[in-house]
């Protein structure tokens, strides 16, 4: 366990962080959008759409991410039809294959969380809003969405943090993010324990920073609770008391 080796390894591993963050950020961002879309499809009332969305969630939550990734990277490339289409510009590169797999996977879990959040909006709120004359998009934007967001955030925050770990699977399709570089170093030097410590530390730090960020976001999005804590008299105005 030499310090020089640990430092050198850490330096090499650090060069994988930009790729890790890119994979993570893009997957989370696109994943959220797709998750909301799938959740809305599942609650749309149109049977075929609901069924399709349920099936999608069933498949992507019931199979391992690694298998999904292999399917997209190796499975799709088997077909000349795909290789000659415009899709190939993206699917040719492991980067986009990885992103596609991550997005499809996180959106499946995310859509369940979003759906849970939407279902948790107290019906009384919706009734009151309708009584005031709100409907359609205004109802969604002013009442349903903010409440659903607050309900879903803790669980979604957890999903965001889990995505950081998921990016390590990209190393299996030749992408050199942190785990990929760690595996290279181990195969060159055979010093698995030291490399594990360095790579593990990097992931822990990243996870810590991201959990802090998510917690701060949750705090920011719950002004009513903050206000109640600072000024007890305001608790009476808290929406949650309904």
């Amino acid at each position, binding site marked *: 366990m030499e310090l020089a080796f640990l430092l050198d390894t850490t330096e090499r591993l650090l060069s994988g962080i930009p790729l890790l963050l890119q994979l993570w950020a893009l997957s989370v961002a696109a994943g959220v959008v797709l998750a909301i879309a799938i959740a809305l499809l599942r609650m749309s009332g149109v049977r075929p759409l609901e069924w399709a969305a349920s099936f999608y969630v069933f498949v992507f939550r019931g199979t391992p991410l690694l298998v999904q990734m292999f399917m997209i990277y*190796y499975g799709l*490339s*088997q077909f000349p039809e795909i*290789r000659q289409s415009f899709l*190939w510009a993206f699917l*040719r*590169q*492991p980067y986009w294959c990885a992103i596609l797999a991550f997005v499809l996977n996180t959106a499946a879990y995310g859509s369940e969380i979003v759906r849970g959040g939407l279902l948790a909006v107290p019906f009384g709120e919706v009734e009151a809003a309708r009584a005031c004359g709100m409907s359609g998009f205004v109802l969604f934007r002013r009442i349903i969405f903010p409440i659903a967001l607050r309900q879903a955030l803790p669980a979604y925050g957890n999903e965001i943090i889990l995505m950081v770990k998921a990016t390590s699977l990209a190393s*299996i399709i*030749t992408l050199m993010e942190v785990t990929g570089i760690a*595996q*290279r170093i181990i*195969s*060159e030097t*055979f010093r*698995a324990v030291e490399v594990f410590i360095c790579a593990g530390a990097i992931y822990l730090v990243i996870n810590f920073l991201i959990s802090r960020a998510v917690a701060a976001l949750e705090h920011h999005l719950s002004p009513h609770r903050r206000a109640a804590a600072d000024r007890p008299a305001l608790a009476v105005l808290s929406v949650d008391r309904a």
Partner: protein
Amino acid sequence: MHDRSGAWERPGKEKGDQAMRFVVALFWAVVAVALAAVTPVEAQTKDWKKIRIGTEGAYAPWNFSEAGGKLSGFEIDLANELCKRMNAECTIVAQDWDGIIPALQSSKYDAIMAAMNITDKRLETINFSSVYAAAPASFAVLKSSPLAKMPGTGEVYPLATKGAEAQKAIDAVKPMLKGKVVGAQVSTTNLAFVEKYFKDQVDIRSYKTTEQHDLDLTAGRLDAAFAAVTYWNDVIAKPEGKDIVIVGPAFSGEVLGRGVAAGLRKEDAELKTKFDEAIKSALADGTIKALSVKWFKVDISPK
């Protein structure tokens, strides 16, 4: 439920007892499985009557798995031959390439015969027998690729002796490869070669197995892949490899290793002696040459 004897039976006692018994049984089951599977390997008796040999099983025609998992290939035949000469009983096991040296060190087997070249890097952790084959390596591309016109096809450059000409050949090839995507298997001299000479010119991808880089080469994700010529010859001979062609000069030596030999643990000096003697005798009477011609159609035994 309240009986005068003072013993109070809590409702659900049966279920609770069952649950507890189940959990306890489970615990001991786990311990039993763990103990059974962690098998201390007896310290090898020094006479080496039984030798276990590790190979990859995915690098035809050196070593590969037939349907049903049976191992076959040049090195399997050679291993059986050498063991006969060493008067030992051999078992050959398959092990993934990336873990092949760690598995040797943890005594999963006693020798590696997996088209492994002698390199200084490897000599830091393990020892080698004497060389039993030499394997130059080269690029392979799709027939339809612009790279199929790479200059120098068919020429062989041993880096140790023909260093200057080799460098010239590499320089001739560099402009064609600039910006392209090249693949090789992880932890191999092939990957080391590409990294040494083409590091900033090409996008280098490392793969766990040669099969994976072949799949990507056929799919068009890789513009070229670098591996042993004997390996490529076998790939091309199969129907799935009909679109692949070997191009450019072949190289050997230096970063590509000083020949293929059996990997051994450093402390097993006696085993090394036995292997060396067996290899020497197999070379002397032409056995290795015959096996080489059988599997590779050319004689790649060391001269």
